[in-house]
């Protein structure tokens, strides 16, 4: 279990991460989500003991990183964002070095290295120099370095950046498999990735947590309206008046005029009104043929953007309040001075 309490990191006056609090249970796959510069990497670097926090505690399986750094580091496998590697070494040499650094016992080492090579699909390139590998393979070598020694906690900083689609699916299924008997923390700004792999999402913006929840809950919470995507053939253009025939439609917009004569509309209604049944009943009567009808789902993308915008507007409100108070104070002081002068 990983517990993070009041974690803060400051660089001079700049606050990179402020008062983070969260708990990660054993065997969970947790996604750190946030725009660039939100503090994802900083947080991960603190959990792995690469940088020191300004304030706050990090406790991994009962050990405090500031008091027992070696004990904590033994339980963590870390793949940094920039995937640093020793380019003069071959893949196998690099993995062996990482195994040695992580105290993998001499008698288990060979077997462990072979297991990792297989797991990460590096068997074919094991004797190549790292500098001659493509970006995707380098990423895998870095991942292999994190996995060697079978640590309980695996921390991956943007593990799929720069990979081609096939490699991305491979790495994702690998991570999902790892989640069966490891605790996995990964960061990403690709939202679909997080919703596919993770059981829990921590959304960070400007160094603060703005939401911790499951991807499904986040999607539901931020869903404001019910959207239906509707493709129809409508030769008499009866769709124009359809909102008079069906109650509850807030808005109909033409999305696409397809070449085959069909048209795609977006029908928006209130959150709790489902119009699908009514559309099926009414449209045929109006000589409109339905080609396709589906519910538009609120994606994590929407949730993410909404949460960040909410956070922004909240901050702006606070700032406005503050500046207003300041102005009032100034005016008061001015007034007092003027009155004082009069007296």
């Amino acid at each position, binding site marked *: 279990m990983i517990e993070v309490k009041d974690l803060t990191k400051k660089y001079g006056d700049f606050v990179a991460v402020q008062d983070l609090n969260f708990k990660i249970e054993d065997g969970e796959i947790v996604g750190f989500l946030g725009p660039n510069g939100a503090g994802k990497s900083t947080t991960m*670097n603190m959990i*792995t*003991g*690469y*940088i*020191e926090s300004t304030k706050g505690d990090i406790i991994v399986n009962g050990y405090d990183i500031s008091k027992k750094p*070696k*004990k904590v*580091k*033994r339980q*963590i496998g*870390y793949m*940094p964002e*920039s995937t*640093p*590697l*020793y*380019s*003069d*070494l071959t893949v196998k040499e690099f993995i062996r*070095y*990482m195994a*040695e*650094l*992580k*105290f993998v016992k001499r008698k288990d080492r060979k077997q462990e290295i072979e297991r990792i090579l297989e797991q990460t699909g590096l068997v074919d390139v094991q004797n190549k120099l790292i500098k001659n590998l493509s970006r995707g393979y380098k990423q895998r070598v870095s991942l292999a*370095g994190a996995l060697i020694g079978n640590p309980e906690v695996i921390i991956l900083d943007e593990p799929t950046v720069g990979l081609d689609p096939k490699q991305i699916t491979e790495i994702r299924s690998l991570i999902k498999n790892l989640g069966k008997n490891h605790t996995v923390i990964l960061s990403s700004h690709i939202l679909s990735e997080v919703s596919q792999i993770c059981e829990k999402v921590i959304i960070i913006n400007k160094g603060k947590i703005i939401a911790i929840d499951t991807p499904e809950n986040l999607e539901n919470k931020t869903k404001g309206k019910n959207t239906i995507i509707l493709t129809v053939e409508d030769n008499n253009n009866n769709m124009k008046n359809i909102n008079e025939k069906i109650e509850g439609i807030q808005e109909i917009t033409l999305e696409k005029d397809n070449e085959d004569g069909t048209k795609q509309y977006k029908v928006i209604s209130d959150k709790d009104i489902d119009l699908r049944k009514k559309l099926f009943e009414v449209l045929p009567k109006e000589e409109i043929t339905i080609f396709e009808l589906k519910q538009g789902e609120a994606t994590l993308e929407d949730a993410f953007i909404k949460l960040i915008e909410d956070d922004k507007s909240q901050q702006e409100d606070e700032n406005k309040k503050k500046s207003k108070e300041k102005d009032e104070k100034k005016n008061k002081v001015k007034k007092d001075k003027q009155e004082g002068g009069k007296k």
Partner: protein
Amino acid sequence: MFAVFKKELKSYFLSPIGYIAIGLFLLVFSVFFYITTIEVFALDLGSLYYATAMYGLLFVVPLITMRMFAEERKNGTEQLLLTSPRSITGIVLGKFLAAVALIAITLVISLIYFVILTFFGDPNIVTTLVAMVGFLLVAMAAISFGMFTSSLTENQIVSAIITVVFLILPWFLPNISTIFSEISLIDKFAKMSSGLISITEIVGLLSFTVMFILFTIIVMQRRKALK
């Protein structure tokens, strides 16, 4: 410590640096072997080691120390080392000993000159060994300083230049004031090169070495908070 030591020593020979360092050293050795022994018909290797320590270390030490931490920092591999369950002390000592081992390898090769001399006369093996130990001590002190400069920057050239300047200054500074000869590493080697075992000088060189190893450890530890 041993894992880092092994890898560091290996990477000297994966890049050209290890070969260049040893080659350069042997070149300087050979030149001075001619000047200090063959040409003057001497049977004593002391001045050979003294001259090589003076001119050879100047080039070779910065060459092997500049990359120690600067390269890791620049490539980000520092992150792998510092998040591994190894202590900073172990990492620093591992790297230090690998560089010392590289010099030690050259010293073993330099026994060739002793063997050559045995064809012409009867050189004293004990004084030669004392000179070699002294040479290694001076090299260790210089390496510890070079390592320290490497931990300060991510630019290898900067580290190398600071080290060269530090090693070259004692050539000129004693002309200004004799106080400066105290900081000269090479002056501490003068007695040992002639076969004298001098405790003050051994202690002086060793404490200099320990001091800069400690400085390196402190720099690495403090950087964690500043990063």
